[in-house]
């Protein structure tokens, strides 16, 4: 098992180097000069230009720049935001909990709703229930989530007035972040109503972000269940008189979940892409909105560092999924 883990980890290193080269090249291969872009319409004096070039190290040969960049990286220095002048890693770590909180809630909702729906659809194959669930799943899968978010805002915030439009918590409440997770922090703060406020801010973004993973998980669970339900061991379990609930829950679902786990792992990339849109719509202060804002502000240090950090996270999660997959399905380990 350890060897399996290490061999997978070793495979990540060339990919990570490649990712760093891509992130590094992006801001260097630009048509136009990041420093002139920084100056905008005003332009700047020749002296100041040289000064800034030296400051950011743009006057050195590319491979020297890359080498310096990688050296800094390995020491945990992801560069400094051109706009806020704060270290990129620090900004990332401040904002990342907001994205994790949202993504975790979304994936929990997606699994908690998607898996049972998929099982029901498979067990009642061909029934109106199956058709309704699969129809809904296909709609969810086809959903432009940025529009879905706006619709939910129109209905629940605009017409019913139940939920706030944006942000993580009402401005009435203020407390220092402890864990970075608003749900936990609001409870720890002990302020009355803070938790409720945090929860009501979280509901709509969670629904929006959960929509596509939920649809994918429901579809995948259904087809995995259908495959497993036709297996001999399920027929054996049935014929020896086990109650259907036990056959489905124990014999079938456990085996059907193996491909579903992979699907769930693959949703991490989907979630982070979805977070870009969801966070933008709900002004959720996470890394998705941070990246979009930085792209618009042309804060290339942040874009470069952020790309690298996000890619690293996806790669690590994929590795964990691979290992988990190896644990629950020993056949693929070798």
């Amino acid at each position, binding site marked *: 098992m350890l060897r399996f883990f290490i061999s997978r980890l070793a495979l990540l290193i060339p990919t990570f180097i*490649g*990712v760093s080269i891509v992130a590094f090249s*992006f801001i260097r291969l630009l*048509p136009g000069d990041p420093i002139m872009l920084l100056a905008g319409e005003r332009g700047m004096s020749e002296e100041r230009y040289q000064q800034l070039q030296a400051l950011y190290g743009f006057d050195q040969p590319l491979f020297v720049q890359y080498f310096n960049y990688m050296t800094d990286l390995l020491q945990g220095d992801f560069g400094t935001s051109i706009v806020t002048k704060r270290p990129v890693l620090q900004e990332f770590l401040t904002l990342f909990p907001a994205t994790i909180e949202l993504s975790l809630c979304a994936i929990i909702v997606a699994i908690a709703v998607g898996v049972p729906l998929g099982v029901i659809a498979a067990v009642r194959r061909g029934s109106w229930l199956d058709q309704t669930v699969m129809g809904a799943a296909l709609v969810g899968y086809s959903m432009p989530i940025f529009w*879905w978010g706006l619709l939910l805002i129109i209905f629940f915030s605009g017409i019913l007035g139940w939920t706030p439009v944006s942000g993580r918590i009402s401005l009435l409440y203020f407390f220092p972040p402890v864990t970075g997770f608003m749900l936990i922090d609001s409870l720890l703060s002990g302020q009355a109503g803070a938790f409720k406020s945090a929860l009501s801010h979280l509901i709509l973004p969670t629904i929006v972000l959960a929509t596509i993973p939920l649809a994918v998980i429901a579809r995948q669970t259904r087809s995995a269940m259908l495959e497993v339900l036709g297996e001999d061991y399920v027929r054996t379990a049935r014929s020896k008189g086990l109650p259907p609930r036990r056959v489905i829950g124990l014999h079938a679902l456990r085996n059907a979940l193996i491909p579903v786990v992979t699907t769930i792992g693959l949703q991490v990339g989907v979630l982070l892409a979805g977070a*870009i849109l969801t966070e933008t719509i709900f002004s959720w202060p996470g890394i998705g909105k941070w990246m979009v804002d930085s792209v618009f502000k042309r804060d290339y240090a942040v874009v470069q560092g952020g790309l690298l950090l996000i890619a690293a996270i996806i790669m690590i999660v994929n590795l964990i999924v691979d290992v988990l997959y190896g644990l629950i399905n020993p056949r693929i380990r070798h």
Partner: protein
Amino acid sequence: MTSTNTKDPNAAVGLEGGTVIAVTRRARLAEFWYYFSQNRGAVIGLYVFLAIVAIALLAPLIAPHSPSLQNRGFFLLPPVWQEGGNWSFLLGTDAVGRDVLSRLIYGARFSLFIGVVVVSVAVSVGILVGLIAGYFRGAVDTVIMRVMDIILAFPSLLLALVLVAILGPGLVNAMIAIALVQQPHYVRLTRAAVMSEKGRDYVTAARVAGAGNIRLMFKTILPNCTAPLIVQAALSFSTAILDAAALGFLGMGAQPPTPEWGTMLAEAREFILRAWWVVTFPGLAILITVLAINLMGDGLRDALDPKLKRS
């Protein structure tokens, strides 16, 4: 348009062995249509998609107004069935008095165009690269697959967003960026299919008969790898439309006043609580189009996947 699309894979399959017999081709087409039409959703999807294609082609004829004409005095007019609606603007008008329905009709052109271009570029580049990787293996394969891993390590929308930021916002650059982030899927699929076909007897036979590498790759092996690629193409057609709309929504795709659906949504955002129709209809158009294509994709998969066919 779609009927020729669906004919192609079967024509290609008919080519295996090098003889084209019209009868088998027609038989295969009939078989394909039999399985495709078993799936009611797929047939509905096909009809909806054909309707959207017709709307896009006939846009100048059926749109009641010009998509960019700003009707003064008719700002944010509600749809006709709501109080204050006007029969000449069926789905209402936007903030500068443009007819929403006409803009949606013209928007269909952009979405289909985006889908066609992105899929064509991603498919042709992906197949070529995947063929090379799967056929030659060795160092070439390793390098290609590592590069694909790197592209796949980023969330696709984020990578597309950054690429467009670098290339400059606009529809063409958005299409290039989306095609680039989509083609690794084709590379992987083609490579896997090529690797499993390469060892088959008919390939060896063709090689013994003196076929060169190029002929083996394109004429002998490729036609037998098309089924998964067609399914993937249908799915990525819808992803392309969604991603382009998302980029438009973020302000990095088609630029205003282009009546692209995502861009329309971005322009409408500030009116969401005042004028629901400027937000609702463009999104609905995206959803219907994407849903129709995904329904077709499911039908294609059922009809082309021999493993599922038997069950």
